[in-house]
């Protein structure tokens, strides 16, 4: 390592605040860039799954009604 110890790496001769603040903000927003679409994808897939379920329920109900009508 270029620095003698971890304390020197963090301090960077007084420039550590600037360097580490830049790194922290950059990593945070980059992480958000990949996590945000993943969260939204999960939600979208759940919604589609609910749509499918709802349609199946409706079809089932319609079938029941027509069955009842036949038996009358």
């Amino acid at each position: 390592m270029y620095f003698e110890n971890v304390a020197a790496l963090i301090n960077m001769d007084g420039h550590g605040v600037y360097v580490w603040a830049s790194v922290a903000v950059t990593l945070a927003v980059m992480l958000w860039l990949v996590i945000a679409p993943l969260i939204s994808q999960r939600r979208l897939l759940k919604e589609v799954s609910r749509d499918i379920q709802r349609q199946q329920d409706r079809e089932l109900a319609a079938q029941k009604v027509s069955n009842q009508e036949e038996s009358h």
Partner: protein
Amino acid sequence: MNWLSNWSPSWQWFHRLGSPRWFYQTTGRWLPWLSLLALALLGTGLVWGLGFAPQDAKQGNSFRIIYIHVPAAFLAQSGYFIMAIAGAIGLIWKMKMSFMVMKAAAPIGAVLTFVALFTGAVWGKPTWGAYWVWDARITSMLILLFLYAGVMALQYAYHSVDAASKASAILALVGTVNIPIINKSVDWWYTLHQPATIKLTSAPSMHMDMFMPLLVMIIGFYLFYAVALILHTRNEILRRERKTSWVRELVNAKAGL
């Protein structure tokens, strides 16, 4: 434009690329590898640049900000080209898939431009003594941020998706004028901002021990950009194609039905 599609059989890939379903499935296979590679390169570059590269003779350790500032600024500009080209393809060939890529590219580019501006400001404090100066390079980067914001805003300014896409694409194309201005700003005007460290046409003006980690970071940022663009585009595909049978099949397959 029919003559273009009848050009030769090799245009088949172009048509497949235009299929959201094909895009979704293919990129799904690439994603794990791309992400892994991006993570490995970014990790290596960051540790190398922050902990092992020598410090700059004039700027000391504050110079290490270069390892995120320059790659972010690179991608902010390359990303703009990608967005504008996607918009142009969408306009010329009426390819919806291309418009989806354009829409996905806007927030990613905006975030990377913000990163370039933020790290630049933080770097400016110990180097120039000020967080912000109205310097040609910095001002043109700020305009880039507004252009990205404009493309994003136009996506929601219309009821029709088609109209929104076309308007965004035109703004994106017009805005490309700004890219050479950003590039040349350090040469055309007297600026505080230092001239380019890396040029395609000549050897880098920095020591190899400093340059190698920067190169790793730039490649890492490109891969990260690809991952982010794919993720955002897939999301847009799902949003627009949620009623189609292939999305339903996909959901059913995932649920194990």
